[in-house]
């Protein structure tokens, strides 16, 4: 047994146990009780909480928006970050500055960016984007006061934040592609389009798998951005599952139901992410 490995893993195992495994098992335990968050006097009620969450349309609606948000941002960030990475990987004047600019879009906390974008998307005539529209004699847009526009805004800001960061990830992989592959393809008469399709893209499959995994797993549990940008509204149009868990568990003093929702969501995410990883492995094998 390699004791150094064991000792090096020990700190992170302690952190994982304390901050992830214990709360997860506590949540599973509370999900089977009527714990209200205040009193230690609670009862075991079996699967009653699980029955409740599957019969509430509002919870299902928040699940729907969360899935739309996670899938849309995963697809669009990937589609936009790939060509951006290829472009930023080329040699041109100001390349380092351009790379830094795109990377730093995603550095500030989501909550801060949500508050800033909230000002930009103000639905008033005096809102910044509405003022810009008025310069072109266009009517004001009800950015955050209309269900569909609000959903668009949340997804747009998430993409805006994520593209630069994931492009940087792709750049790191791009730089690891052996140059001789391109040289050999030139000898064979390949054009740049063919090089991208038959060399760059297959070589980037591991990067795409990593990037989409990070986006999907991060955005399924999104909370800060929609909370600060729209507060989950108008109505419940931009409410996410994590908001529902907090609202139901803490806001309604029903920790049991909130915990049940959290447990179901954790396992749903696990299934989704495993499916995504499985699909990525299949694609990787196809190109390897």
């Amino acid at each position, binding site marked *: 047994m390699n004791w150094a490995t064991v*000792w090096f893993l020990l*700190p992170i195992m302690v952190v994982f146990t304390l901050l992830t495994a214990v709360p997860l098992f506590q949540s599973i335990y509370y999900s089977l009780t009527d714990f209200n968050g205040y009193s230690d006097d609670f009862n075991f009620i079996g699967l009653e909480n699980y029955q409740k969450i599957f019969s*509430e349309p509002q919870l299902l609606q928040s699940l729907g928006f969360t899935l739309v948000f996670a899938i849309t941002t995963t697809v669009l960030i990937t589609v936009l970050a790939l060509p951006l990475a290829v472009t930023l990987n080329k040699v041109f004047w100001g390349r380092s500055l351009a790379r830094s600019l795109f990377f730093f879009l995603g550095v500030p906390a989501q909550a801060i960016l949500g508050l800033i974008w909230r000002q930009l998307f103000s639905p008033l005539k005096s809102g910044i984007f509405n003022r810009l529209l008025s310069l072109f004699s266009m009517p004001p847009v009800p950015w955050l006061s209309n269900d569909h526009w609000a959903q668009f805004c949340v997804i747009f800001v998430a993409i805006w934040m994520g593209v630069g960061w994931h492009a940087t990830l792709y750049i790191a992989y791009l730089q690891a592609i052996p140059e001789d592959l391109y040289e050999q393809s030139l000898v064979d008469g390949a054009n740049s389009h063919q090089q991208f399709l038959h060399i760059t893209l297959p070589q980037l499959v591991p990067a795409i798998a990593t990037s989409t995994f990070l986006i999907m797993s991060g955005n399924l549990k999104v909370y800060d951005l929609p909370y600060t940008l729209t507060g989950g509204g108008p109505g419940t149009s931009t409410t996410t599952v994590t908001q529902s868990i907090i609202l139901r568990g*803490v*806001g309604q*003093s029903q920790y049991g139901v909130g915990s049940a929702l959290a447990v179901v969501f954790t396992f749903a995410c696990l299934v989704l992410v495993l499916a995504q990883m499985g699909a990525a492995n299949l694609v990787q094998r196809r190109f390897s």
Partner: protein
Amino acid sequence: MRSHYLKTVAVIASIAALAVPIAACGGSSDTSSGKTKIVMYSYYAEKVMKPVIEAFEKKNPDIEVSSSSSSGDTDYTNTLQTRISGNQTPDIFNLSGNNRVDVMTNGAAADITNENFVKEVQQNYLDDYSLNGKVFGVPISGWVGAIVYNKDLLKKAGYDSVPSDAQGFIELAKKLESQGITPYLENGQEMSGSFIATLGSYYAAQKIDDGDRAIYSGKSTFSKNWTPALEAWKQVYVDSGALPQEASGLTNDQVKQSFLNGETAMYRSGAWDIGDIKQAGINYGFAAYPAYSGGQPYVNGDPDPAFSISAKLSGEKKRAAEKFLSFLTSKEGVKLFTEGYGSVSISQNYESDPDEHIASIFKDYFFKNQYHWVSFEKGSNAMSAEVVAKQQGVLSGQISPANMTKDLDSKWKSVQ
């Protein structure tokens, strides 16, 4: 061998580096200086509590008050609940309309009925913080929310002040709108202040005593008690165009900014914004919300969140916490607190001198009990969120008042 030795040292150093900050998270709540340390989690911002704490600590050098706070009802209620559920109940905390029933019924607050500092506040202000004849929290000040209006913009529309009747208000809104001015705005992320005032006026006009409590106790429903007032509110504010649909996407700061820019003629506010309004040089006034047909104009208002002591305290810490509340409710404490918070004293120990423009609102409405506010006795955050979501639906024309109250009845059942 040497490599193995170095690896072992590196591992031990890594673990030690990790362990130090973890260990720092725990620790005793008492200082080593021999002082009794009490922990306060305050609803009120640091700038409000700091002068009070400093004055208290000066008078009581053997006690140290460690204070933290959260901004906003929801954050405060959620954090306090999380701390209570995690056995980290602060020694002193606040009971608000949103958490009072849960905290009192679950025994998290100490019974302070017989404490002298409670006797300085009139019984009617203590009612919200009492259960089964026992007092669990002491409020020391009150707040009002009303219509702040730009006198110059109203004058251009031919008005000196805000009409107190619904029809007059609708006419004013239409005149302002025709001049390209947004008539009225309020924070779209909170329960509508204009609706709650209309509800208070409706209850008074219909002689419905404690209409909201009747709903909470199961004697009535939202459909029965709220629908007429909600329909009246929709007619006066939504159908007339006084409150535009954009309001549902606005925060308090955006609403205030629009008023300060001169784009909006009226908005819901209170003493907390007077400094900013004065700084912007706006010629302003305060007015009550228009009356429900056959009723009286009403404002929003309530006693401010009350101060409570943890039921788990005992010995020196309990005595220190009681001392703090005694000081807070003394003349000096109330003066420092109300001046910092911009509210008005409801303690018999001290009479506040509010801004001249809002003084009449306190005098004519608050102290005459012509105010109303909605505080749900169960699942307050979830119920408030439901009201906000549904009122946004009414504002956008997606749901009717009757459907909104029907949904609220369903939600109320689910939080029981």
